[in-house]
């Protein structure tokens, strides 16, 4: 039996430590991992917990991230609670197996400390890896700080394993900006956290010898479509389950999360929409913009997949101008978030269809400064007054050299 870990009411943890403790408290049966920066400390801490007797489950060291996710698929099909962590190139190597996991409906939880993709090689944060996993059939949860990393990792197990969901879940945190930034985190006691997550409930475990089961069958044009449709349906329905989990979590901790988090949106005329740690930076800038008379607001989503189209359409219904920030190279299109937000405006009746612009920022960990955010709110204010764009739709900000913009 695993020893319980003495935790203080408030701990000074970075995002990786927060993840590792959440995995420990969920008493995962199998973690198979191949550490990669900046997610390494999740696995490193988990390994020390294991060796110091705080974990009963298996810890499998494998030869690559492809093998890590493959071992996770095997262990989850066998019938256990399973988790791993990765970043960037490691995530890219896992991609093939991510589709296997979701197609087989195995409720694996994957912590991703977001990092840029080579080339050129770069260890710092952007959302390239998060975007790479967008269509893999996993639910994607986004977090803004170490407290959220901890909370969402616990909630991720509950969501993934819910009998009405059974879809694997990724929990994203910004590499270094969240994964290595120490902040106050309020953890639950071990037994409280475990009780919240609950015992693992197996669905068609391979180790049930009375009901042998085949995983990974081939289904050609006659049936492949139906299985993918069924997965899509489960993902779409999962947001209602997540809201229930948010409410249960609030009862336990007093921390009430929402799929969309909004700051000062009640009367906002202009708004920034961004993921991860940029949410908090944008709030600082929005407060400053309010002092200058700009009615500024900020919106983020905790849920990248399924994307909350209708809720987002409602939030921006009366907004006059919205900046959508993408921290990944769009490589020949508008940023992915821009496309999603633009589509969401057509999902609700009576939208004023705000003027939309797309800011590409922070690639490879380039700092996003308050000056950059101030300028965005200035741009938006001009757009709102004119009722039309006063600058190109897509702009690269914080880029050295001549301005780069399109449309």
């Amino acid at each position, binding site marked *: 039996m695993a020893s319980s870990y003495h935790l203080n009411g408030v701990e000074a943890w970075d995002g990786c430590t927060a993840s590792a403790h959440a995995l420990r408290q969920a008493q995962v049966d199998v973690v198979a991992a191949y550490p990669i920066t900046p997610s390494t400390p999740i696995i490193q801490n988990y390994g020390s917990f294991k060796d110091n007797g705080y974990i009963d489950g298996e810890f499998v060291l494998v030869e690559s991230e492809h093998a890590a996710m493959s071992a996770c698929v095997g262990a989850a099909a066998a019938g256990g609670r399973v988790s791993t962590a990765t970043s960037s190139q490691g995530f890219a190597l896992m991609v093939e197996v991510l589709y296997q996991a979701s197609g087989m409906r195995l409720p694996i939880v994957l912590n991703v400390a977001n990092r840029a993709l080579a080339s050129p090689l770069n260890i710092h944060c952007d959302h390239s890896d998060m975007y790479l996993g967008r269509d893999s059939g996993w639910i994607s949860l986004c977090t803004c700080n170490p407290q959220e990393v901890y909370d969402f990792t616990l909630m991720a197990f509950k969501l993934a394993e819910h009998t009405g969901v059974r879809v694997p879940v990724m929990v994203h945190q910004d590499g270094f900006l969240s994964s290595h930034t120490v902040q106050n985190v309020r953890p639950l006691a071990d037994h409280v956290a475990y009780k919240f997550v609950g015992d693992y409930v197996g669905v068609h475990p391979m180790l049930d010898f009375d*009901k042998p089961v085949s995983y990974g069958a081939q289904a050609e044009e006659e049936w492949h479509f139906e299985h993918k449709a069924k997965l899509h349906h489960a993902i779409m329905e999962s947001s209602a389950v997540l809201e229930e989990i948010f409410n249960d979590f609030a009862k336990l901790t007093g921390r009430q999360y929402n799929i969309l988090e909004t700051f000062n949106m009640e009367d906002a005329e202009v708004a920034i929409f961004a993921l991860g740690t940029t949410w908090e930076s944008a709030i600082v800038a929005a407060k400053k913009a309010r002092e200058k008379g700009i009615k500024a607001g900020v919106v983020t989503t905790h849920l990248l997949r399924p994307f909350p189209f209708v809720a987002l359409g409602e939030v921006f219904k009366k907004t006059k101008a919205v900046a959508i920030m993408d921290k990944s190279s769009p490589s020949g299109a508008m940023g992915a978030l821009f496309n999603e937000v633009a589509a969401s405006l057509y999902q609700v009746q009576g939208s004023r269809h705000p003027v939309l612009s797309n800011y590409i920022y922070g690639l490879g960990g380039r700092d996003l400064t308050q000056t950059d955010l101030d300028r965005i709110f200035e741009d938006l204010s001009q757009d709102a007054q004119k009722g039309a764009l006063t600058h190109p739709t897509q702009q690269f900000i914080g880029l050295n050299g001549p301005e780069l913009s399109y449309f």
Partner: protein
Amino acid sequence: MKNWQEFEAGAVLFPFEKQGQEELGKHNNERTYTTNSSFTASVANWRVEKPVHNKEVCINCFNCWVYCPDASILSREGKMSGIDYEHCKGCGVCVDVCPTNPKSLLMFDNLESEQEALAKWPQKAEGLKKKSYRTEGGYNGF
């Protein structure tokens, strides 16, 4: 035709309706398989050549049974009892690993009857050392 709601989540398949362990204790031809299992479905339509087993020569060493990638070598009571032509793909591994002289398994055209094949069986090849035809795998009787 099943609709998308009727499938089991995760595209999983169940070979038995119930009592799997009990079923697994029986010989496969005595089990009650579901249609999810490929036991009753032929997956050998693309075979061009088939192995034929000659029980007069066979020494029941079970090399073929060990090496067959599709579990298509049939056996009962410690003796080889033929080939499962519903699942054999005709890869020829069984012939390659057969250590007897002449071989106890040989490849024939898929359309050739077992009787005709057995009538054509070659004689023992003289002057072949056991070691050479085992390790080089070159002797196939034709």
